[in-house]
């Protein structure tokens, strides 16, 4: 049976670097080397262009949708060193804020969990990570972590706003203590975890396992299960799954998901983190799931462009 339900012709004039579904799965945002960001309504198999956003002066690397409680908001980052926040007002999309505080290409943007407010993390090739927080009346406050990664930061990803294990514990009636955290991956081959303490951002953990640039990090969403999980992928072809079982977030241990034969560009979690999608230089997309015994297995390799899929049987061994 064919798995393709819709093929959207985006009319981009150059390579597409990101495609993100909005919160509900009804709209698609894409960005490209042609410097534009486009938004499509993809409900019920349709593809209606809603907006063609121009404003960047270089290839746009990533887009990120904010939580709908704040309205329809999209952030984009580009080689032109700018981060632009777009908003839909009265049916039309407009630029609502432009951030130019980076000295180099901004490679990644990620919105914080909506519980923390409207906060955007931006990672740049200048090695810094900026945090833009909306404070009201069109004003944004900026906090910068300089030299977060030497040479450059390639990816940022926020931790979910939930205390690990709080869902399955006996309800204690205690007020939960959320600590803002996010992970970043950089050209120093490291994945770093950042924590906010007294309004300041500090490096909490340094996760070392990759032997080349970290291309993407993705902190798994959580409904409150005991384990915190981060996926990272690298130029070295490896994808690591980092897990931490204590709520204080102190001891992370890596597990090699797989060693691919080529660079791995993207890792992306399903909405409640049961499945991890991995995409690499061989242009293949594979889906991975953790078994009951804690081993990761490939449950599918999606043949893109041909419509056919092959569900890979379980038991594919991890290769070292």
């Amino acid at each position, binding site marked *: 049976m064919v798995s393709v339900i819709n093929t959207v012709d985006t009319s*981009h004039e150059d*390579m597409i670097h990101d495609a993100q579904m909005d919160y509900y799965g009804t709209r698609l945002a894409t960005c490209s080397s042609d410097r534009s960001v486009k938004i499509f309504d993809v409900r019920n198999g349709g593809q209606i262009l809603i907006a063609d956003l121009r404003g960047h002066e270089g290839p746009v690397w990533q887009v990120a949708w904010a939580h709908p409680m704040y309205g329809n908001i999209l952030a984009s980052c580009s080689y032109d060193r700018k981060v632009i926040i777009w908003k839909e007002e009265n049916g039309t999309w407009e630029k609502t804020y432009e951030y130019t505080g980076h*000295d180099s290409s901004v490679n990644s943007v990620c919105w914080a969990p909506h519980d923390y407010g409207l906060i955007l993390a931006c990672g740049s090739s200048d090695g810094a990570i900026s945090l833009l927080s909306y404070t009201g009346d069109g004003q944004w406050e900026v906090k910068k972590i300089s030299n977060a990664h030497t040479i450059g930061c390639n990816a940022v990803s926020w931790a979910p706003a939930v205390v690990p294990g709080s869902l399955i514990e006996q309800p204690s009636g205690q007020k939960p203590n959320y600590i803002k955290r996010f992970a970043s991956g950089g050209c120093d081959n490291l994945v770093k975890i950042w924590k906010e303490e007294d309004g300041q951002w500090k490096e909490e953990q340094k996760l070392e396992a990759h032997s080349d640039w970290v291309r993407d990090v993705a902190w798994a969403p959580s409904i409150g299960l005991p384990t915190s999980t981060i996926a990272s992928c690298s130029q070295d072809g490896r994808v690591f799954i980092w897990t931490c079982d204590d709520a204080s977030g102190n001891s992370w241990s890596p597990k090699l998901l797989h060693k691919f034969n080529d660079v791995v560009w993207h890792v992306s979690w399903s909405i409640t983190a049961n499945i991890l999608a991995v995409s690499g230089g061989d242009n293949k997309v594979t889906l991975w799931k953790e078994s009951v015994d804690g081993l990761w297995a490939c449950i599918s390799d999606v043949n893109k462009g041909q419509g056919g899929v092959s569900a890979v049987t*379980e038991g594919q061994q991890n290769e070292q």
Partner: protein
Amino acid sequence: MPPSSWERVRKGKKVLRIYSLSPCHATGQPSLLQQYRESGLSSSGYELSQYIPATYLSSALGGPLESAVVAPHKFLQPHVPVCLGAGGQLVLVCPHRPTEGQLPLVELHSLEVILQGTKDQEELQAFPGPLAREDLHKVDVMTFCQQKIASSCDLSTQRGRDSALLWKLLVLLCRQNGSMVGSDVAELLMQDRRQQERYKRQEPAVGPVSLADEEWRQLGTMDLITGEVPPVVETQAQIVEKFTKLLYYGRKKDALVWAMRNQLWGHALFLSSKMDPRTYSWVLTGFTSTLATNDPLQTFFQLMSGRIPQAAQSCGAAKWGDWRPHLAVLLSNKVGDMELNHRAIVTMGDTLAGKGAVEAAHFCYLMADIPFGYFGVKADRMALLGSSHRQAFTQFATTEAIQRMEIFEYCQQLRHPTSFLLPFQVYKLLYASRLADHGLPAQALLYCEQIATVLLQQDPSSHPVLAQQLTKLAERLKLCDPLLLEMPELDPALEPEWLLQLRTHCQHCEVRSGFGHSLPPAFPSRPLLVGCCFFLSAFLTAAKFSFEELCLAVKRIINPDCLLLLLGLRLRSSLSEKNTLQVVWDGFFKSASPVHLLSLCLGPPCIETGLGSCLVVPVGSGTEDVL
């Protein structure tokens, strides 16, 4: 290993990768390139920098080269960005070059189709959940259980048989609409037992003999050749005769010993029952000691005697044999002392659990009505039916375990339609999340509705994290409701009632307990045409809220942009209601565009009952003086 991107570069493809490092003249530090070489970091940066000379950069940019480092492009080749959407979609970009005429396509795949045939998907699809549906027939549930027995229980192992037994119990419960009598279960336990175990009889342990040796010898005649006294084989009649003879001489004790040695239990028991209690107990003990220690009959007698049977502490061991007949005996013969019976069954469960026979242990606990508790709480005996909560969480919360537990909850609901297991709702949410991630969001949403219904009946503040996470998941999936797809004229912004109520409760909890964090600033948002009900009860006032907190709460809950607020408050404070309303009103006017109050439910009935109600109703524009 050289990076493959470098390989492609070498093969002569057009590359726009510009990575040029200028020396830092100003600071006098060694050039970055030098630093990279020395540091041994990233082969990519170093090798690429070799390829493109700095002069290329200035011509490409059409301007002079700045002294700052120019970053590499994040992507130079087509690649496949991928993302998983809330509606069960997999989005992937086709790695094309539109500049060379290839189409700039993005494909949306159905995750449900992609995962078709995988073990997890099949497991999820085989289950007819959520079970609290109106159109569910219990036959479907029973069929599922039977399929489970046939396919996943390895009947050659004890644990496999125990697992099958648990499923059979669920079938029984289902058939009998949730009620079970001890004898029904006993029958279930004794079913399918291929061989009756032989419980080896033992010689009676009679204890010190009071008869003198000579007298025993007199009972048999000596063999003249060997000098030994051959054992005397006597008929029943002769034994009884001897017994009687002993009694002629008043030798009751001897008579008892004689009777016990010769299996004349009826006589022995009758006689001793008329003597002193100690003698009677002695004979009883003598009688039961002829039974094997693992004979269910022993268990029965011990229970009848008012003791926790030995079986309760010893079963599960390999030498003890099957635990089932023992439980059957305990269940079918509930003694007057219910507490003893209960303790016996629980002890048996604990023993079995200690030996790792989880399914067997949980079977016992079910018989003893042990409540379900929480994972991680060691004192709780069960969290999920048939699954040990002393192992790692992922091994504990398997899909099968959750499905089995849901069937159990369903059986209980057959009996009492409003019953539910509160700790279990957490696992239903976990199950819903699995459904959502496997491309089955509509079913996941149904589960969310079930959990919400249960929580709202109970009190969402009894489990705030569950309520909060449930709200988040349901919000995300709300557009996957098949009703919305079938009837596109329905406004997608309209949320189901249960979701509205749940969210309201969550926000109520957050404010009350100081949950959460500083408020997100009120970002002017799209007008929402939403109706919602908000109830502030007298309970709220009992929490002794300050004015500020109250205003904060109201502001947070209600979208100030365009919702109408009907607010009725009952405040047992020194401040008058009118003042309160004034503050709220002012607050709204300051925050965003004008808010219009349409009406106020402040009539005496509201005040007397202590109920406040706040109705939010869609409105157009135009100021109306309400108060």
